[in-house]
């Protein structure tokens, strides 16, 4: 086995293990923050401060009976939980989660694949996430599941457009499709004190991207595909046990991935303003930059959770008109202004 393959495998393992083991604690954080916002304490019985609660939840899902309902489309029903996992895990391949680290004389870039067309890769994979939800809804032989799946399709297609237009603004600014170079372009400073993060260059684009990220992840206020009061559980109503667990896992994993992407594109990635991480030696540099990245992702994740427990759900017609009549024109204007400024300034 050549060192390159070993390094690649190591990075893939680290990322998958990192994301999948972060999910239970994200769920735990969600429950705790939700409880605190509602003046409650939240889970605190399993382990110190309830820290082992996610383990208990996972064990519960593992031991539940796996039910195959009557009249399902077996192929679609069994394929859907696997499909929903593709988007969150594959997208993480293009995200630089640290600068680089030197171990055993080898300099390792902390990114699985530095694709020159990273953003295109993300858009392609993100479109795949629709299939899991739609097939899950279709295969379940349940009208509410089907409606959930249809809503997921319509919502994801609508919001992907505005998200794509925001991405074009970023691509124009940094002149590249590669995520690592987009991060590198954000390392300078603006006006002497402000870090040149894209959130300061493209505030409107950031806001639109954030809203689209909520919608892409089916998070409140855009959780119509699984709106409990209307659709029981939406596309995963008929799923039990570990198959339901996979949907659940994918939902939170894609939250992490989307936050990581948001940090990469708009919040300067692993870059800490005012500190050149190259001063700390070969190993610490990588670790510190990864920690900075993780802290930024955690902040965005907190925003996701905070939003969920603040805003109520949209009505379906409002969801659609908000996307097509409000976000899409705003994204277009944002793109037009960015292009104009770039052209004028040469």
């Amino acid at each position: 086995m050549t060192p390159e393959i070993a390094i690649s495998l190591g990075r893939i393992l680290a990322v998958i293990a990192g994301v999948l083991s972060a999910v239970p604690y994200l769920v735990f954080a969600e429950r705790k923050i939700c409880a605190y916002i509602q003046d409650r304490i939240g889970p605190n019985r399993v382990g110190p401060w309830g820290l082992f609660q996610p383990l208990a939840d996972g064990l519960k899902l593992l031991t539940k009976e796996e039910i195959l309902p009557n009249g399902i489309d077996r192929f679609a029903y069994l394929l859907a939980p696997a499909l929903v996992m593709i988007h969150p895990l594959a997208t993480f391949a293009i995200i630089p989660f640290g600068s680089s680290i030197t171990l055993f004389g080898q300099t390792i870039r902390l990114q699985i694949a530095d694709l020159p067309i990273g953003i295109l890769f993300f858009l392609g994979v993100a479109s795949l996430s629709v299939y899991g939800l739609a097939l899950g809804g279709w295969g379940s032989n349940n009208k509410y599941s089907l409606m959930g799946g249809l809503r997921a399709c319509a919502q994801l297609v609508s919001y992907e457009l505005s998200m794509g237009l925001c991405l074009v603004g970023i691509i124009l600014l940094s002149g590249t499709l590669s995520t690592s170079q987009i991060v590198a372009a954000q390392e300078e400073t603006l006006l002497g004190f402000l870090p040149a993060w894209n959130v300061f260059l493209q505030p409107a684009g950031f806001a639109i991207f954030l809203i689209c990220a909520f919608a892409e992840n089916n998070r409140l206020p855009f959780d119509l595909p699984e709106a409990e009061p209307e659709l029981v559980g939406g596309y995963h109503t008929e799923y039990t046990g570990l198959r339901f667990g996979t949907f659940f896992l994918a939902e939170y994993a894609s939250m992490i991935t989307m936050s990581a992407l948001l940090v990469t594109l708009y919040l300067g990635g692993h870059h800490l303003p005012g500190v050149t991480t190259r001063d700390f030696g070969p190993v610490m540099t990588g670790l510190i930059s990864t920690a900075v990245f993780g802290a930024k992702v955690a902040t965005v994740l907190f925003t996701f959770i905070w939003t969920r427990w603040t805003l109520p759900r949209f009505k379906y017609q409002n969801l659609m008109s908000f996307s097509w009549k409000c976000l899409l024109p705003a994204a277009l204007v944002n793109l037009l202004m960015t292009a104009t400024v770039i052209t004028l300034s040469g």
Partner: protein
Amino acid sequence: MPSITEPAAALVKGFGITLKHLFSRKFTSQYPEKPHPIAPKFRGEHKLNKDGEGRVKCVACFLCETNCPAYAIRIKSAPAPDGWQDRERYPAEFEVDLLKCIFCGYCEEACPVDAIALTNKIPEVETSREAFILNKEKLLANADLPAATSAEKYLDDILKKWKG
């Protein structure tokens, strides 16, 4: 073109409220570890009082059983044992069915010798109907628990407060 400032202000306000509650005082009480304080007038399990010699005070007059609106009390009367000079009869059995009882306290008000009273003790959870019946031993075991403030005293206290 709808105004954008108004919804934006509403959003900021909403997020502010949830952020404020994130850090505000929590109302959860950790029940089994820290029990709720019980009001002195809370009426829970019954008790049978004892007289100065440690005997049951009850004289088996059946006033509480007659007065009970829920038919929760069952008394079996018997002639008083030898040496009990102060009464002719005593309760051989005394049962209160907690599943029937409505904790109104009428038995306490009816009792002419202050033998039965309600305590602050919350009835325990059991798994059979029989276990919810308080027999004479259990009632006597409660004898030293403080009694719930009687309705009479409660009203008196309120009147005193009003009159200053």
